[in-house]
């Protein structure tokens, strides 16, 4: 993709802001990156459930569209599986 004005890079800043400020999410830990070769925006991170996963994808899609970016989005977020609490004896 020819992005000589840095449109996508600048849009990603606003995507991260949108994730933080969305009322459903307040999401600061999801990472958003762009691969210029494939023109794919990738989102990664651990989320609480499929509902949050859908909300994140929707916020990213809307924020990119609002900033004139039509890149494909690859959702690599994962829903966290809670494991049994581990025990550590005498941390040193």
């Amino acid at each position, binding site marked *: 993709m020819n992005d000589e004005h840095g449109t996508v890079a600048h849009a990603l800043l606003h995507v991260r802001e949108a994730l933080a400020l969305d*009322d*459903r999410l*307040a999401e600061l*830990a999801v*990472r958003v990156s762009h691969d210029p070769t494939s023109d794919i925006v990738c989102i990664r*991170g*651990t989320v*609480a*459930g499929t*509902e*949050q996963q859908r909300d994140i994808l929707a916020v990213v899609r809307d924020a990119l569209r609002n900033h004139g970016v039509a890149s494909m989005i690859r959702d690599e977020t994962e829903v*966290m*599986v*809670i*494991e*049994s*609490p*581990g*025990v*550590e*004896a*005498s*941390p*040193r």
Partner: protein
Amino acid sequence: MIRVAAVGDLHIGADGPDLLGEGFSGIEEHADVLLLAGDLTRHGTVAEAERLAERLSTVPIPVVAVLGNHDHHSDTASAVAGVLADVGVAILDGQAAVLDFAQLRLGVAGAKGFGGGFATATVAPFGEHEMKAFIAHTHDEAQRLRTAFEALATVACDIRIALTHYSPVADTLVGEQLELYAFLGSQLLAEAIDESRCDLAVHGHAHGGSECGRTPGGTPVRNVAMPVIRSAYRVYALTPRPA
């Protein structure tokens, strides 16, 4: 031995699913006390705190907590703390909690902490008012932790723990982007911890970080952010240091 359960970054919303679920059910079989390392709520609203308080009200072991940056987002941190205190949670903001178990006494010194960076990449109090204010808050939080430890020095505790939201060391940030380190913790917290000779420091905040670290003075540090430990809590079985 005291069994200390610890977790941070529950991010409880006013509704909908969250990471914790029914994760504290039966905790008394595994632990004697529960430490919460901040970011207990998603936006720091009273409604979110009330939802968490409902779950904590059924936890039959003592609960000690600090707030995190999310708990401050709506500028109602005092009300959030009040809701949790109403169900018996000890909220520490530069104070200490002392808990007696059978033959051992546990002291917990707590403060939220703040960013500022580590070692060669730290923020200095120089330039614009905003930069000075940023690092002044870090110094203030480190001093709050010191004050809490000073309070503990007046009682004979067998085991002492530092509880913060922000990280005192870079070790437990490994996995996060380097550019974020200065916003994830401060070595000024580690300095306060090392002055106190405590047995363990636990923190949250760094979802993409690592679990284990150590202060420059050798205090073990554990990042108990829920996305890091991938469980409702981690349990640390602590025994007093040999005399």
